[in-house]
Each structure stands twice: as structure tokens, then as C-alpha cells.
């Protein structure tokens, strides 16, 4: 497996843990809002994980990005500046960057994810 992909997947897995924490923190701070969507944790930085789980992870990430946008557009300045929301937004941006980089490597290097 492409070593760059392995590194990106490992970073993405670490980012997933950060997101899980940020999600809990945000939910504690804004108990009256629905919780941000769940993001599954990839079991490991392997080709099998990529092949079997990546499409679902990307779909979950899209839901999460939509959630963050929705909070941004529906909240006042105070909520948008809240550390819990900023942490959530930062982790989502990082995950999004890793996901884009992964997609780019998959496209450029033509890794075949078909079973």
C-alpha cells in the first residue's frame, strides 16, 4: 500500500479521536442542540479498512460538514466564538483536509479500491 496513504489514514484515525472528543464537548456545552453526527473510527490504516469503510466515512464526513455549516449560519456571534464550537470546527476542517488528500492520492496513484 502507498506509504503516503498509510500516513494519511493514520492521521485521519487520530483526527477521528479528536472529533469524538470535540463532539462530546460541544454536546456538553450546547445540550439543547442535537448532537453533531457520529464519525466511525477506521479500525486501522490498512487497505482493507480503506476498501470496506472509506465510502461510509466520506458520507459521514459530508453530514458533519453540513452540520457545522448549519450551526454557523443559525448561531449568533457568541456561539460561533465559543471554544467548544471552534474546537469542533477545527477538527472537522482537519479531517476534511486529510480526506481530500486521501482522495487525491487515490486518484493520482490510481489505487483500486474495488473489492
Amino acid at each position, binding site marked *: 500500500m502507498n506509504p503516503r496513504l498509510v500516513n494519511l489514514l493514520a492521521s485521519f484515525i487520530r483526527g477521528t479521536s479528536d472529533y469524538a*472528543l470535540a*463532539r462530546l464537548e460541544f454536546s*456538553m456545552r450546547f445540550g439543547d442542540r442535537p448532537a453533531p453526527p457520529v464519525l466511525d473510527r477506521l479500525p486501522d490504516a490498512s487497505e482493507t479498512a480503506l476498501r470496506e469503510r472509506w465510502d461510509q466515512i466520506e458520507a459521514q464526513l459530508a453530514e458533519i460538514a453540513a452540520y457545522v455549516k448549519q450551526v454557523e449560519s443559525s448561531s449568533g456571534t457568541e456561539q460561533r466564538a465559543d471554544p467548544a464550537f471552534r474546537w469542533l470546527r477545527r477538527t472537522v476542517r482537519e479531517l476534511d483536509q486529510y480526506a481530500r488528500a486521501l482522495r487525491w492520492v487515490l486518484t493520482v496513484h490510481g489505487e483500486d479500491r474495488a473489492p
Partner: protein
Amino acid sequence: MDYFNRAMEQAKQLQQIAADAAQKGIEQATPLIQQGVAKAQELQKTIVEQTPYLTAAAQEQANAALQHTSAFIASSKTVLDAGTQQAQQHLTIFADQAKKAADATLSAVQSATQKQTPPAPPPPPDPPVVS
């Protein structure tokens, strides 16, 4: 600290401990795994204490959180019993179980604190029939 905050804080700590453990080798991770088990037991106690006061729907979520927490504790035993070579693989499962326990706790807490919608008022009686 109320149920909501206590359970959420414990779930957050559990998730943090497991994520830290997963980044380390088995020797360095061992104290964190033990800490994780203690935290999971605390979380179970918090959930169990609150369960009798919950609605049926919230109890179901609480039971799911308890099951995930038990699975987390079981996974920690597997890590500690595994040989050094297999430990890293089991640490991944351990971290995954912690995340599931934390996510399930959040669902349980949200279900428990959901505002109850008051029942709809009964429809007005039919007007008397005038013959």
C-alpha cells in the same frame, strides 16, 4: 454535578484515555488501560444510578451505553492478556470500544434530558344533537 454533566465528563475522559493508550506501546499503555477500566466502571455506576428515573426509551439508550461500556472493559482485558505482538491490534479495538461507549453515553444522556412534549389536549366533546 448533575447526571448529564457527570456522565458526559466521564465519557469524555474515557475516550481521551483510550485515544492516548492507542498511541503508545503496550508497556506504556498498561496504566492507561487500567485507568480506562476504572473510568468505565465509574461511568457504568453513573448510568445505573440514573436508570430507574428514566423513561422507557431513555432506559433503552442507557442499556446500550452500559453494553458498550462492558464491551470496552472486556476489550481492555483482552489487550492486557495479549502478547506484545498482538497487543497493538487489540489496542485499536480498545480505542474503538471507548468511542462507541462515549457515543452511546451521549445518546443516552440526550434521550434522558429530552424535553417531554406535553400530551395533546383531548378533543372537545361533540355538541349536543338538537332534534
